[in-house]
């Protein structure tokens, strides 16, 4: 098929804008493939794999922008290429600006906004540590959303920051909420006296929205990035966050959420917790355990329990586990007995890694074992993350799926595609979904899933698939929790108030299916 291309040397555009333009161009009728990409070595490989790397482009460098269109006819390719080029020249999105000056560096920006106290950095990993250090140099705290930052760079940044008393949230920190301001992927949550420190973005999101759902409120949510508690980094920012919340007048209860720390860091955290003057809810995912004598420290085993325990510590009132409402529970029970004989398996399609983990843990506790691209048990790794096997729960936000492609919380198309694929599989009985709302997320994630469910259902031969979902969001989120839940229900999904509840419900259905469960 004829390929047309254009090289724009010395141009720079952010990868999200380029992906949006690529997607639009590729969707044009008659186009086989199209891309707008900076010619980094990794991108050139991706282009080669897509059959778009013509010989003339092989010498392009990381500061060159490549536009390539492969179409059925030459004139289509040329037209689409011209349109692609024109969209680039359209006015850039500066809607976030509060001033007319357009700064080109952090230093310039700081002069224009002298009160700036956080640099929110999501530039490509190669440059992220440099930019973070520049921000620290200028006396700002850093929210480092970027990943692909080396552990050496992380350690250097955090040690420098610690010396200056500054916070580095990240790398790979998806979520923070400071003094009511949501940063990156974060929900709009009621204010209150519960503070959170988390090494997981979706973990923070899940806990903060549950606190809101349970009537509680959040003082601050401090993210640390997923690697902070490994022994090489030593929990620098996790401990700094804990110390800050302990001193913060507006915080009464502290929730800590993370995967288990490295051995040495575990020791440091335990020692620090013994000294803690405020009640702490400790949620170590993947079944981690820590030895702390301090009766003010409350270990919990899942995200929902963390939120419930925190709210209870504030109000003094015990809260029972969240479950589906009457109608939902009845529908689940009814569906459990209606599966066709060949329907046996669960497929969990997750956009949030921590929610994916939690589901696998809840199921494992019910003696239901799941394959995954991020398995929690030995021997349960999928050979091919794109092909499910028996009970499978996948994290579609993992690197495997997001190299050169947008995260599923932003762009639901990969997950929608996978959903339709699973619904075409006659051995599938239950599909689980998480739907994450808030800033940063897609404008209508439930809508996208509902559409995919309809498409899947229309094409399905064999017994109905039971869709079990939970929405991680609040009424005050832009997408509105109740509206999103309604969309899913209208598409025939059973919607639960937390992922924990949804996972338990799914487990019950599977046990009934296997004839093992006591509940039918």
């Amino acid at each position, binding site marked *: 098929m004829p390929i047309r291309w254009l090289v724009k040397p010395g141009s*720079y555009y*952010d990868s*999200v*804008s380029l992906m949006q333009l690529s997607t639009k161009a590729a969707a044009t009728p008659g186009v086989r493939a199209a891309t707008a990409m900076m010619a980094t070595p990794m991108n050139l490989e991706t282009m080669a794999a897509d059959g778009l790397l013509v010989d003339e482009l092989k010498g392009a*460098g*990381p*500061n060159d922008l490549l536009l390539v269109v492969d179409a059925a006819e030459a004139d289509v390719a040329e037209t689409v290429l011209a349109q692609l080029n024109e969209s680039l020249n359209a006015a*850039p*999105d*500066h*809607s*976030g*600006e*509060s001033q007319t000056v357009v*700064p*080109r*560096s*952090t230093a*310039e*920006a700081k002069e224009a*906004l002298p*009160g*700036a*106290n*956080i*640099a*929110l*950095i*999501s*530039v*490509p990993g*190669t*440059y992220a*540590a*440099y*930019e973070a250090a520049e*921000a620290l140099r200028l006396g*700002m*705290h850093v929210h480092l*959303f*970027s990943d692909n930052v080396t552990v050496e760079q992380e350690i250097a940044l955090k040690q420098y920051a610690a010396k*200056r*008393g500054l*916070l580095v949230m990240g790398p790979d920190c998806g979520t923070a909420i*400071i*003094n009511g*301001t949501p*940063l990156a992927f974060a929900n*709009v949550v009621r204010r209150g006296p519960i503070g959170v420190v988390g090494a997981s973005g979706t973990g923070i999101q899940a806990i903060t929205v549950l606190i809101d759902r349970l009537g509680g409120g959040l003082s*601050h949510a401090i993210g640390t990035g997923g690697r902070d508690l490994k022994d090489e980094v030593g929990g620098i920012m996790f401990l*700094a966050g804990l*110390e*800050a*919340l302990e*001193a*913060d007048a*507006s915080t009464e209860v502290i929730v800590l959420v993370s995967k288990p720390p490295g051995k040495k860091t575990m020791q440091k955290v335990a020692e620090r917790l013994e000294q803690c003057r405020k009640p702490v809810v400790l949620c170590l995912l993947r079944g981690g355990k820590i030895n702390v004598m301090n009766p003010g420290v409350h270990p919990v085993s899942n995200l929902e329990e963390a939120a419930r325990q925190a709210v209870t510590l504030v109000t003094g009132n015990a809260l029972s586990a969240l479950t589906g409402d009457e109608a939902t529970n009845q529908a689940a029970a009814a569906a459990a007995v209606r599966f066709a004989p060949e329907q046996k398996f669960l497929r969990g399609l997750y956009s949030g890694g921590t929610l994916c983990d939690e589901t696998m843990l809840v199921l494992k506790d019910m003696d239901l074992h799941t394959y995954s691209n991020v398995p929690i048990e030995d021997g349960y790794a999928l050979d091919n993350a794109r092909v499910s096997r028996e009970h499978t729960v996948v994290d579609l936000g993992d690197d495997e799926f997001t190299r050169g492609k947008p995260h599923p919380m932003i762009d639901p198309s990969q997950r929608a595609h996978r959903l339709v694929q699973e619904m075409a599989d006659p051995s599938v009985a239950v599909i689980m979904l998480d739907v994450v709302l808030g*800033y*940063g997320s897609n404008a209508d994630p439930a809508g996208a899933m509902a559409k995919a469910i309809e498409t899947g259902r229309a094409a399905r031969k064999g017994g109905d698939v039971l869709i079990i979902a939970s929405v991680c969001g609040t009424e005050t989120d*832009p997408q509105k929790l109740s509206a999103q839940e309604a969309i899913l229900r209208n598409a025939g999904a059973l919607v639960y108030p937390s992922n924990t509840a949804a996972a338990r419900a799914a487990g019950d259905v599977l046990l009934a299916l296997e004839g093992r469960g006591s509940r039918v």
Partner: protein
Amino acid sequence: MSEILTLLGSEVQVINLGIPSFAADLAAVGAPALHVDWRPPAGGSVELLAHLTALQLADAKIAAANEEAMNRLAAFQPALIGIDQAMRAIPGVDSHTILHAGPPVTWERMCGPQRGAVIGALMFEGLAATPEEAEALAASGRIKFAPAHHFGAVGPMAGVISPSMPVFIVENKAFGNRAYSTMNEGLGKVLRFGAYTAEVLDRLAWFRDGLAPLLAKALAVSGPVDLKSLTAKALQMGDECHNRNLAATSLFVRELTPALIEAAGDDTALLQRVATFFAGNDHFFLNLSMAACKASLDAAHGVPYSTLVTAMSRNGTDFGIRVSGLGDQWFTAPAGMVEGLYFPGYTEADANPDMGDSAITETFGIGGFAMAAAPAIVKFVGGNASDSISYTKEMGLITLGTNKAYTLPTMNFAPGPQGIDVRAVVSRNLQPLINTGIAHKAPGVGQIGAGLVRAPMACFEAALAAAATEFSKQ
């Protein structure tokens, strides 16, 4: 810790680098947010990024050093205190020393105009009787060629200084160090463009025997001339004191006139010739401007860990820079071609590459950096008056601070940007801008145009690499 606690109690104000929607979301919730039009630092080069990162790690030392260096610049007090022959005024200059503009260069590699100036200088010194003898002598190894910079001196274009040429003596009163420069010959057939005819040598002789002695006497009468206040006034009168020196020249002559008259006494013929010479030379102040900048910058050179650029200079073949914390090293690259307007009859094909020590003015923050003061310059590159302000603002992106003594009326009397930071040049991928004349590449033809040129990035990249190695040693 208290910083984090302060953050928790404050309104969050964000600077956003990367995904634009993050800034839009913050605006939607009413949080002050500024999105940066970001591009990879240092043009995306991973190697340069590694150097920049190494320097970030040494930031505390570098910041303190740069503050010291900038304080020294701010303390500048350049004064013209005298005029005398180079071999008497400049320590180390002997009978066979020939100084030249730019970083070190051999006779073999010198460009046409500079060779012409060397030939003229050797004949002026009486070391050679003909141009052929002069060339043979120059190639013989018996002449000690050296950058004027190495002797505390600066010269425009070919910048050749020979032992018996009179030089201005400028002292930086704040630190006691001195800088020297020759007197400006005017335009047309002049030594600095490589001419060595009898007319040129005669003028040099008159400088030595007539003009310089009179000026020396006049200075003894008037006392030191404050070059800082002259420059400050000139910058508010349409000069940038590199390519536009008319106001400064006029102010200088006005200031010295009473002393000149007294010093001349009965020698009205000499006084008349001097007055006529000044009246016809719009650029007489240039060499004083350069010496003042040199004296001011030399005081800030040699501060360990400082990334301040203390010299930018060209010999018509190479462009070189020096950095305060990197000692005597020159970081060089081929001199570029000037982009501008040509006088009738000349084109780029006739042009010599960029030449002269006059970029010391931009190094100090005037010249091209103060283009907002002299909008006429941008016409040479097809710009308009607001472009001249844009250029000055652009240079503010690569400088460590401003010069409070030199304020620019067209920018609401804002102080001009000053103090080129080698890190910023590389990370911002933004080269210092220089206003300059264009010389014909053949010796002796003269100036054929004027315009703008950018200092080569390669010089700054090399300096950055050296700084990354030097400054990250424990």
